[in-house]
Every structure is written in C-alpha cells, then in structure tokens.
C-alpha cells in the first residue's frame, strides 16, 4: 500500500492531470460530439480530455518513488523549490494583480498603478512599507508620462465604476 508520504511530485502531478482530464471530459460530453466525418464542437475536447487522463495515468505509473527521484537540474539562481510555502510573497503578488483589476474598475489608472506596485513589492522579505511606497510612487509618475500622455492608454486616470 502506498502511504501518503510517498506521494511525490509526480504522483501529485498525475492526480492533477486525471482531475483536469475528467473535468474536461465531463464538460465536453455536454457538447455535440458528431462523427469523425462531421465532427461536432465536443469531439476534439473529449479526445484531448481522454488523452490527458491517459498521460496522467502514464505519469503516475512511471513515477519514481520519492527519495530517489532524479532531479531535473534547476537553473542556477532560479527558484529552487526548496523551503516552506512562501505565503507572504504569493499573496502579495497575486494581490498586486487583483488590486490592479479592482482599482482599475473602481478608482482609475493612477490608484491601480500605485496599489499594484505597492502591494506586490510588500511581498519581498527585504522590502519595507517605505521602499515599496517610493517604488510605487516612482512608477505612478512613469505611468502618467509614458502610458497616459505618451501612449494615451484608454483607462482614465481617475474613475468610479
């Protein structure tokens, strides 16, 4: 019996693919299938979903047990996946994008710019509120000159709704 501990990256990946493939299949079967001669909208997605599940099974079966997995040599200096979860960084980066979307809608270009840079910069452990704010302010000025006046971006500087 496989213990949960032996669920390596490959097994997780395989499960993810199986789930994805199953989801694609479930939705795809709702579209018209048609025949090989005259394919409906659902034909290709269903085939792809099934293929994805197949590949998932193949990855799961051929996966080396964890502990002696061969390393895909990571690029030097690039994110080695070691270390615990980096919640602060993750939340701030995603928060930065979300802030841009939300404030772009309910605020305008300048607030969105400031918020996206400020929030995402907070994700770095060496970053402080002050340095993030300075960077954000600098980019607001840059944005005003280059994107608003230079490239006349459609988003108004300030807007509500």
């Amino acid at each position, binding site marked *: 019996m496989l*213990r949960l501990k*032996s669920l390596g*990256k*490959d097994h*997780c*990946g395989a499960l993810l*693919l199986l789930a994805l493939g199953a989801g*694609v299949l479930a939705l795809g079967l709702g*579209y*018209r299938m048609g025949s090989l*001669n005259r*394919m*409906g*909208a*659902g034909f*290709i*997605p269903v085939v792809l979903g099934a293929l*994805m599940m197949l*590949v998932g099974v*193949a*990855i799961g079966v051929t996966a*080396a*047990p964890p502990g*002696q997995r061969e390393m895909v040599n990571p*690029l030097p*200096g*690039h*994110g080695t*996946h070691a*270390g615990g979860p*980096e919640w602060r*960084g*993750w939340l*701030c*980066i*995603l928060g*930065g*994008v979300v802030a*841009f*979307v939300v404030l*772009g*809608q309910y605020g305008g270009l300048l607030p969105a*710019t400031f918020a*996206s*840079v400020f929030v*995402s*910069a907070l*994700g770095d*452990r*060496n*970053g402080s509120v002050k*340095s993030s704010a300075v*960077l*954000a302010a600098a*980019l607001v000025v840059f*944005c005003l000159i280059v*994107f608003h006046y230079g*490239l006349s*971006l459609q*988003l108004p500087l300030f807007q509500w709704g």
Partner: protein
Amino acid sequence: MHQSLMDLWYGFGVALQPSNFMWSVFGVLIGNLIGVLPGMGALTTISMLLPLTYVIAPVPAILMLAGIFYGSQYGGAIGAILLNLPSHPPHAVTCLDGYPMTRAGRGGAALGITMMSSFFAASVGIIVMIFLSPLLVEIAFKFGPSEICSIMLLGLLAGATMSRGSPLKGVAMTIFGLLCGVVGTDVISGTTRYTFDLPDLADGVELGALCMGLFGIADFLVSVNRTTVKASDAKVSMKDMRPTRAEMKQAFWPMLRGTMVGTLFGAMPGTGPTITTFIAYALERKIAKDPSRFGKGAIEGVAAPEASAHSKTQVDFIPTLSLGIPGDAVMALILGALIIKGIQPGPQLITEHPDIFWGLVASFWIGNVLLVILNVPMIGVWVRMLQVPYKYLYPAALFFICVGVYSTKNSLFDVGEVAVFGIIGAIFLSLDFPVSPIVLGFVLGPMLEENFRRAMLLSRGDLMVFLQRPISAWFIGACCLLIIAQLVAYARKLRLTPKLREPAELIAE
C-alpha cells in the same frame, strides 16, 4: 539564387525605411536591455511588449518582435556569464564555462567571444534562411489539411518531448495548451466551449494574458524570496572584451560546429533552443582532447552553445513563417502576433507578403550589426543593470504586465486571466512540469483542430488518409520514431536502475 539576392535587396529597402528601421532598433535595444535584467527572458520581454504591436503596422511590429527576441538573447548571455544567472533556459549551458571564466577574470573575453560567435552564427542562419525558404515554400504548396495536421503533430510532439524534463510531462502540458486553445466559440458550429458562462471568454483566452501569467507571474511566484542573486563584482570594460589571439583560435572551430548544430536543429520544427545548446556543448566536450577542462572555464564551452543558439534563432523563422509551425514558445508568440495582425503564416506568406519576409531577413542583419556595435560600448551599463535588486524588479515588471495586458483589448478581465494563469503556471512549475509547451499547444490548437476537421471532412472520416498521402505519411513516421526513441530511452533507464529501485520500494511498502 539570383532571385533570392534581388529579393534580399528589396528586403533591405523595406527594413531601412525610417519607421521600420526605428522600430527594429527599438526592439533590439529594449530586448537587450530587458534581457540583461535578472530573471527576464525573451518570452517575458516579448509578451510584455506584445500589446505595443497592436497599434503599429504589421511590418514594423514583426521587425520589432524579432529584434526583441535576438536582442534579449544577446542580453541573456551577459547575465549567464557574469552572474551565473541564465534568464533564458538556453543560456544555462553558457553558465557552465562562462561563469568560471568570469571568476578567473576572463569574463570580458567570454563576452567578446560570445558576441563574435553570435554574430557569425546569426549571419550563417540568415544566409540559410535566404536560400532555404523559397525551396521549402515550393514543397509547402503541396500541403493539404492532412499534411498540415501531421506536421503540426510532429512539431507538438517534438516540442513536448525534446524540451527539458520528463517527456510525458511535456506531452501533458501540450495537451493542456491545446485545451486552452479550445476555450471560446467554436468557429464551425458557433457553440461556446468551456467559457463557464463568462461572456468575456467567448473570444477565447488572450494570448498575452496566457504568456504573461505562465512566464511572468508564475515565475515571480516561484522565485519570490528564493532567488539568491549575488551582486556581481565583475568589472568589465571595453578593453577587456577583446579576446586574445590564442582564445580566438581556440574558439573558431567550436563556433563553426555550434553554428552547424544550430542550423540543423533550427530547420526541424519543434526542437527547442535549450536542447540545441546542450547538444552543441556535449559535442564540444566529446571531441575535445582534454574534456576535463570543461566546466572550469573552457572557451569552447561558451562559443559553441552561444553560436548554436543564435543560428537556431534565425533558422527557426523558416518553419515558423513558411509552414506556420513554430519551433518553440518564443516562435509561437511571434506566430500569434502575426495571426493577430491578420497575416496567415504559411507558404503563401513569402509571395503574398514579401515585405514582411524579406524585410525581416534584412532587418536581422541590420539588428545583429547594431547589437555588436551597441554591446561593446554599453557593456559597463549592462553590468550595472545586472545589479538591480529583484525586489524592485518584479513589482515594476508586474505593473508593466498588467498595463500591457489591459491595453491589448482595454479589458480588465484579461488582467484577471493573468492572475489565473499565474497560479496555474506556478502549480505546474512546482510539480516540475515544463510550461513552454503550453504556448505551443495554445497557438497551434485552433489551427490543428480546423485542419483536422477539414481533413476528416475531405476523407469522409477515414483516418487512414494521414498514411495514404506520402508527405503526411513521412511526418507520421517521424512522430512514431520520436515515440519509439523515447520508449527505448525509458526502457534503458529502467534496466540501468533496478538495483537502485529495490531498496526504495522496500521502504515504500
């Protein structure tokens, strides 16, 4: 031959038109500049500037994108050699010998050699492109839907299995990319597929959003607080960049061989640039008199991979433009940009849009000359750019990504897509899945589906049509060969490691 030279002359005329020339210079400069920045590869740079191409005419747009591509390749080598930091995977090999050379105080010479071999290799690639493309076009005119399908299949399969990491995972990612391409309205029946009732998805996933999510945000997510970039203390001035006569002599043949490898692999659709540089490096090591020198600062280990990368870059444009089959993710992006501009890549491109094709070829040369001229005096600036800390870099890049995606269609929904693809990409990356096959699948997906359905319609649902037509049969045969080669490699690995497996399995049970 004579015709090709005449066409090239015409191309120079197009490329030197002030507006085209300006955008080309701009692309080269920006590409080089951003390529130098740690963690910013060609893919990130192109996807960040992709929106800019929507507002300019097709010819300058393509010239600019191509300029960004090879410009960032020049820039990437600088980071690889001076900092041991490859911003673009193909440069990973250059680190192996380039960085030891920097530590030994010969970093400048390594850069000089890189620049020379890059320029030489690019020139060879361009010449091959000039003479091979018209030939390929003649063949390509014989292509029907079934041939296009089989060659796309070959390209996807090669792209999936010949990149870094596990081939099966590459295949999985290609399928994922194809599925992303399915999202939106089905052109034949008008059904909306996988849109989850979101009207914004009816036009499909935005190419820029997908790329920036997968290569921008996902990369930030994976590397935030985890990059260990040491500031470089290397000081390189213009004087240092001149290699000694002995070094030039040593690098000459590796440069030629690297160029050959790159040219050969560039003409094959689907083979990525990373594998090409690895092969060029392995070849040098194999034929070297003293292989132990490699990894300790052998100049051959810098010259050959860099040369192969650059000749491949140029030759890669042949299948991309004349067949519509991109060699790797960067080419897929350029192809996507062409399609957005309403230009269908394929055999008709060279005859219908000679300004694009020959203008591009000529601009390659102009761009490469510019890069050499630029890089020598600017080297001091680049070295200082390398020291920009990551904590300033990624928030700024994140903002550029948001604005860039927004400006494509003035849609904030697309910016949201970036976040989603960022999460997806980060999950896949952390599970050791390669993400670049996704782009390949995404760009080729709709074309593949359309041609497959057309081929089936023509053959009345007979799958054998792919084997009955000779050109198509060749491609299918090549696909089978690829799969067999992978199976053999897997079987050999199993046979070599049974002893290692047993104890591990015992523990697991």
